[in-house]
């Protein structure tokens, strides 16, 4: 986590290979929700680039909730730092529901600098991945969809 305020551009890219890692892992974890972290870079224009995804343990082991194992979270953050990457947020799957934050997702989204990625497996062969920014404004959680782009290779810059 970084205590500095994020400059919002709302564009976020993820390499296709990293997207496939999330998708394959989420399929393996069915019927449970799957979860993990995302790491990469904040660019000068405020956009973000996910370079690496982390596939972590859902300690709830259910299809209705997820909690990331805090020890795995800590280890992943330390690995990111060692590789020169920045923690950018997390991802989790919705095995049976659409790719949008549930009320519980919003309630538990408390890092204003994070991007929250949700992979819907409502149609297993047609996964839907979206990214969201969640911020508390006057006690209410305000959700904004980010422009998530799946790229074949790392974009320049």
């Amino acid at each position, binding site marked *: *986590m*970084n*205590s500095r305020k994020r400059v919002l551009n709302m564009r976020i890219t993820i390499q296709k290979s990293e997207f496939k890692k999330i998708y394959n892992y989420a399929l393996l974890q069915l019927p449970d*929700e799957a*979860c993990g*972290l995302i790491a990469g870079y904040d660019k000068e224009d405020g956009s973000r680039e996910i370079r690496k995804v982390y596939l972590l343990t859902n300690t*709830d082991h259910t*299809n*209705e*909730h*997820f*909690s*990331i194992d*805090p020890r795995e*979270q*800590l280890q992943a*953050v*330390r690995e990111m*730092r060692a590789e020169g990457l920045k923690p950018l947020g*997390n991802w*989790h799957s*919705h*095995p*049976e*529901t659409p790719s949008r*934050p*549930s009320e*519980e*997702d919003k309630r*538990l*989204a*408390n*890092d*204003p*600098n*994070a991007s929250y990625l949700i992979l819907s497996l409502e149609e297993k062969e047609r996964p839907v991945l979206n990214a969201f920014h969640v911020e*508390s404004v006057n006690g209410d959680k305000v959700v904004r969809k980010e422009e998530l782009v799946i790229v074949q290779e790392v974009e320049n810059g």
Partner: protein
Amino acid sequence: MKIVVSGEKKEVAENLTVAALIEQEKVETPQYVTVSVNEEFIESGSFADRILHEGDEVEFLYFMGGGK
């Protein structure tokens, strides 16, 4: 004294507590933050009592969870 906070080296006052560091670092929504010092998780009730020492490595981690 020097400590490492979220991967960055920082010069801080002697006898700084975890609670004071949270305030000093302007951690947002600190009530949802888990703190580790040298990979040991600190109980939130101990933040005001836990004194940091030279070379300590501190991480602030938001609880990450949700549901359908």
